[in-house]
């Protein structure tokens, strides 16, 4: 828990006009993958933009790679060691995949042409786009564009990777490849990613942070998050009124999540159950309950 960590945020807040998007967010992340879970509008994108140095927080303390992003020279130092995948990455569609990555590599201060091209080829291979590197971006499929966007974040082997919903638009096979890629590259660097896919968190992350309405609802390991939901998930033939969230499963029974009544048919919770307990319809707070 030191400002020297890859990411150190203490009470970070960011508002737009009178609307607070992030309110008092705290996080310490070292090497490894940290997953950010939260409903739409929870403030994940604003928060990740702060961590990617493209937004300046209004309040709190933020240190990235031991440096202060509020100071121009230190911000530049951070950006030299940072990879960022925005939620809605855009492209110059007339560029080829290679030209686009070369363009971003120039912005990342890779001055030597030959070694820059080598690096572009390396990240193209990393995301498996070798066969289309000479094609214009407008001819690439949606999944290929997502991989291309991820490739630009990997340029220069950054020590800190900020990925805003990197698995959106990927089919199951591509998601698996992405997990392999992140699993491979997670060592020796810190990766912060946001996602709607609770399975991504279970598969990839050593730390999970759940945010809702700009505030942290949970921070810890995925296993501990699941453990906290133990005894609070049960199956029933009906939607139990005491459940915070309930839905009909494939076998016709209802999966109820919340404070279980006595004698309930308890089942093993999943990370999704744990997540729903935190931010579900009634937003039961485990933090308050425990």
């Amino acid at each position, binding site marked *: 828990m030191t400002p020297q960590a890859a990411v150190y945020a203490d009470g970070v807040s960011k508002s737009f006009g009178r609307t607070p998007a992030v309110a008092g967010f705290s996080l310490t992340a070292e090497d490894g993958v940290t997953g950010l879970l939260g409903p739409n509008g929870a403030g994940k994108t604003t928060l990740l933009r702060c961590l990617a140095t493209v937004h300046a927080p209004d309040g709190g303390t933020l240190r990235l790679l031991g440096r202060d992003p509020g100071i121009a020279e230190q911000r530049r130092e951070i950006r030299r060691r940072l990879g960022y995948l925005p939620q809605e990455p855009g492209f110059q569609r*007339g560029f080829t995949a290679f030209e686009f990555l070369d363009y971003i590599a120039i912005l990342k201060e890779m001055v030597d042409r030959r070694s820059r091209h*080598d690096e572009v080829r390396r990240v193209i291979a990393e995301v498996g786009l070798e066969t289309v590197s*000479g094609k214009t971006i407008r001819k690439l499929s949606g999944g290929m564009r997502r991989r291309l966007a991820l490739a630009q974040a990997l340029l220069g082997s950054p020590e800190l990777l900020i990925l805003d919903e990197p698995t959106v638009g990927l089919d199951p096979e591509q998601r698996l490849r992405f997990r392999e890629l992140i699993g491979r590259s997670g060592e020796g660097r810190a990766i912060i990613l946001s996602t709607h896919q609770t399975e991504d968190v279970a598969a990839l992350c050593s730390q999970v942070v759940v945010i809702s309405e700009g505030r942290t609802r949970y921070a810890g390991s995925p296993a501990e998050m699941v453990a906290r939901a133990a005894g609070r998930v049960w199956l029933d033939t009906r939607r139990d009124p005491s459940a915070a969230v309930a839905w009909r499963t494939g076998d016709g029974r209802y999966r109820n999540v919340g404070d279980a009544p006595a004698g309930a048919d308890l089942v093993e919770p999943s990370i999704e159950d744990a997540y729903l307990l935190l931010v579900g319809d009634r937003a039961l707070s485990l933090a308050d309950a425990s």
Partner: protein
Amino acid sequence: MTTAWHLDQDLVRRYAAGATDGVLAASVEAHVVACGECRRRLAPAVDRGRLGTVWAGIADTVDTPRAGGFERLLHLVGIRPDTARLLAATPSLRASWLGAVAAVLAFAAFAAGSGPHGQLLFLTVAPLAPVAGVALAFGRAGDPTYEMAVATPYSAFRLLMVRTVAVLATTIAIAVTAAVVMAGPGWFAVAWLLPALALTATTLALAERVEPVYAAAGLSIGWLTVALTAWRATAVPALFGPAAQLAFLAVAMLACVEVVRRRDRLAYLIVGGAS
């Protein structure tokens, strides 16, 4: 194949060091392809590091896609390949945009031949071309890679300046060409320049707070309103007279000072006027 000629030690050394001219090197290469003895003699003399560099150069040349037509044009006029690529990523430097600007200004220049009102139409429209071009060169609405670019160490202020200069150079060149073919008093051909610079610089000064396209749109509407009012008031509006020109110059200079003074703000995403 047998041959009387073989590489002597001096030629081996010079070839291995890359010190032979093209013709001699070609002769050596043609010979060593056929002569095993000279290949054996040459192989240990070649520095492995140099060989690696040469090979990497060949691989890069073969493997790197050829730059697009616009970039090659920029290379021809002496712009460095890195800068050319940054400019090629600018929407308002694409052929389609420049073609649209040329078409609008050609129409305005054509209208200028019809009399004083036509000339005023040209003077009013011409300053809007560089403003729109600069607004589309930077920011979320104009640059699809804007958010990724902001997160890189490359100075956003420098990127903005590089693109602004390129957009101004091209659109002003088009407008001057249109103005030259336009009938009318000589000063009319350049009277739009200072309004153009004042509007462009003000757009950039506001760009640190408001999305450039919104700033440009607001300023353009304001400019058209002022121009229309001036048209109604007098036949030869004071809007392009000496006093007004001095005022445009002052506005342009003040706005430039403001842009430079607040350049650090460009290091973050512009959020004003956009979500």
